[in-house]
């Protein structure tokens, strides 16, 4: 069963304790990982997700991953961290190396969803990205934490230098497309939908 977005944002999910390799992932990636697991029959992979809201304070991610590795490592043959750098300034990768666990490559999920090489080649630094999860959770991750629900006048201080919102669609979902378009309008940005599927995520997990 797929957990609710609210659960994935606020509290994360614990492992099912089935499988010999544990994925420690961001809650924002749970649906995609569970879908890949089911589609490919990757029963050797177990999944625990940390609350996606840690993205609002990236400094929490490294410590939370460290704690999760310590908590679970004795129960599994291996651990794989499904976080990109996610604003930790290289801190998460350094910690994973210290802990002797591997992690997925890339600066952000929206980089590996597109494919890290393709994403880097675009040099699209005036784009603001949303994934399926972030479209669904736009208010929880963008609108409210930035105070735009209370102070819409701050919008251009945050987004004045951006030009477009790119919705990287992991799935074909007209409702999400419409919502993402509305998100772009609320931020005063032009809109582009780009279907990415799961990008580098599938190949990274298939190697485990």
């Amino acid at each position, binding site marked *: 069963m797929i957990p609710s977005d609210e659960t994935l944002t606020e509290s994360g999910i614990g492992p099912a304790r089935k499988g010999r390799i544990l994925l420690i992932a961001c809650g924002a990636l749970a649906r995609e990982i569970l879908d890949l697991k089911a589609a490919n029959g990757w029963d050797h992979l177990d999944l625990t997700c940390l609350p996606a809201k840690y993205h609002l304070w*990236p400094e929490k991610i490294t410590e939370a991953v460290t704690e999760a590795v310590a908590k679970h490592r004795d129960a599994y043959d291996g651990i794989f961290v499904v976080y990109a*750098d996610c*604003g*930790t*300034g*290289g*801190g998460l990768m350094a910690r994973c190396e210290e802990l002797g666990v591997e992690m997925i490559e890339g*600066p952000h999920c929206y980089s590996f969803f597109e494919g890290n090489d393709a994403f*880097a080649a675009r*040099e699209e*630094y*005036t784009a603001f990205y949303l994934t399926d999860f972030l479209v669904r959770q736009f208010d929880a991750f963008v609108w409210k*934490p*930035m*105070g*735009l629900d*209370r*102070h819409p006048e*701050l919008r251009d*201080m*945050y987004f004045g*230098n*951006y030009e477009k919102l790119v919705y990287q669609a992991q799935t074909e979902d007209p409702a999400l497309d419409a919502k993402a378009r509305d998100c772009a309008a609320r931020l005063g940005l032009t809109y582009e939908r780009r279907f990415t599927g799961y990008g580098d995520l599938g190949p990274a997990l298939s190697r485990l």
Partner: protein
Amino acid sequence: MADEEDIILSELDDEELVLQMHDDLYDGLKDEIEEGVRILLDRGWTPYDVLTKALVAGMTIVGADFRDGILFVPEVLLAANAMKAGMAILKPLLAETGAPKVGKMVIGTVKGDIHDIGKNLVGMMMEGAGFEVVDIGINNPVENYIAALEREQADILGMSALLTTTMPYMKVVIDTMKEKGMREDYIVLVGGAPLNEEFGKAIGADAYCRDAAVAVQTAKDYMSRKHNKLAAG
């Protein structure tokens, strides 16, 4: 009868008014800050005193509460907007009255990065502390930094980045300064959410500044060391 919440700024004495302005700044009340600034000026306060005692002191409280997790980015931005409005009134007057100048800073966000909220806050607080600030904006290649430093005869270079992918560009700038034999002529301060002290050291900056208040204090410390060095030399 006036509501208890209604405070008539012009009826407060100087001390009460300054404290009220600290509160208003904290609450991001732009109109009230503009009014308070005008009242103090009308009462004969120097622009420098209004800036430091009412605005900078108020913004320092905001900065401390942000650091302690009591205030968050939206509230800080509202406070900054209010302070900016007050400073817009004071700036021309400060230029006329010859307020003390502590030093000159060139500040900008690095190439490939368009984020400027932190940079703008640092620039504003540096101005409030008496620094002349030349803001070269966002997405700056190394050439922009070098040209601005030379053109402005600055004391300090401030570089900002919000992305893990763009922060290494700060090293490109510092290495270019070294190649040109100009690194030692400037104090280099770096900041931005994904940075830390270790990174600042690794790229050869003089200091990493975790927030605007730290940037101001660090800049002041380095400027005073520079003056001491010059005096001793």
